[in-house]
């Protein structure tokens, strides 16, 4: 089933990479982009989004804060947070909002597995 994914990252380079990876794995999906958390919520009003791939280190809300708000607004959305900042506290924060953690630089196979997992209903994190 065709889905819509949103990429939220202040880096255009990163958005280009993520968009290309999504479309290589899911050529029939639609991809929208946002440069920060505020823009994410503006774009949500314009398109029905099923999957969000969110950078951690952004101006304004960080990726976990943006994901928590997104989760509250759309409990069933699939979220992955991408960052090179794999500190234990960051990764446990990512898990606590029920998001997948994918380290930057992104591994294409891992992105493929995450995208494939969105065909199933989302598994809840223990903390939810």
């Amino acid at each position, binding site marked *: 089933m065709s889905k819509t994914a949103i990429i939220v990252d*202040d*880096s*255009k*380079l*990163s958005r*280009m*990479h993520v968009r*290309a990876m999504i479309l290589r794995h899911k050529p029939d999906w639609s991809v929208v982009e946002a440069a920060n958390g505020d823009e994410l919520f503006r774009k949500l009003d314009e398109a029905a989004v099923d999957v969000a791939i969110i950078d951690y*280190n*952004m*101006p304004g809300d960080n990726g976990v804060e943006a994901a928590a708000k997104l989760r509250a607004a759309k409990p069933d959305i699939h979220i992955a947070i991408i*960052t*090179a*900042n*794999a*500190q*234990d*506290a*960051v990764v446990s924060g990512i898990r606590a909002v029920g998001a997948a953690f994918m380290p*930057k*630089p992104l591994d294409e196979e891992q992105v493929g597995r995450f995208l494939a997992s969105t065909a199933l209903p989302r598994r809840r994190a223990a903390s939810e």
Partner: protein
Amino acid sequence: MTAAAGELDGPPGGPAGGLAGEAWDRRLTDLERDALAELGNMGIGRASTALGRMVGELVRLSVPSVEVMDPDAAIRSLGEALPGPLIGVSESLGGVFDGTALFLFPETDSLPLVRAALPPDVPPEEAGPMEEEALAELGNIVLNSALALVANLLGGGIDTSLPAVRRGTAAAILADCRKAGFPGGGQAGGAAGAEADDTVVLFRIDLRATAQTLGGRVVLMLDPGSMGRLRGTLGRFIGRVSGG
């Protein structure tokens, strides 16, 4: 740990790195310094792997090296190793220690690096218009890869700011970073007071592609006042790894 206390720099009180020995020894013991170098080695290993994956063809060239020194010695050393105009991507740090992390490399390597980091379907002429923002992302990934590993090994958090891209000589970029790190002009005595007290850790990272060699440095500048906190954290780390 690769060396026990006392084995690194000759007799206690002797010259250590680029700093007059006595002032240095008051701040960091040989064992603490060795622990910091070891952490830096592991962090830089992670950072060079990340950079290599982003730009595809680059591979790690050398075993990374670590030096701990005062700011003046760091500026001299960086100026000799990397003469000419440089790019510096910096992030301010807080948490386990306050300071600045900086990824520094020759400006002539910038566009080749950005071109190599573009997705395969993007024409190389896109590199020019995207240079600043791509450098920020490359630097962010390099610095965060290293810092996250170090934070996890130390068992403490390191907060990182958004990356800033700077251009100039090593001396100019370090001065910019230190100004940014000390809003309001620094501690008592102004910039001169701050300069007398802060510490620079240089991590060397060399990468080679088929067509070019990128000789870069990752620089960690610790703010005055941070050293006590870092020593405490290093002490606990040493205690854990030595089973003490």
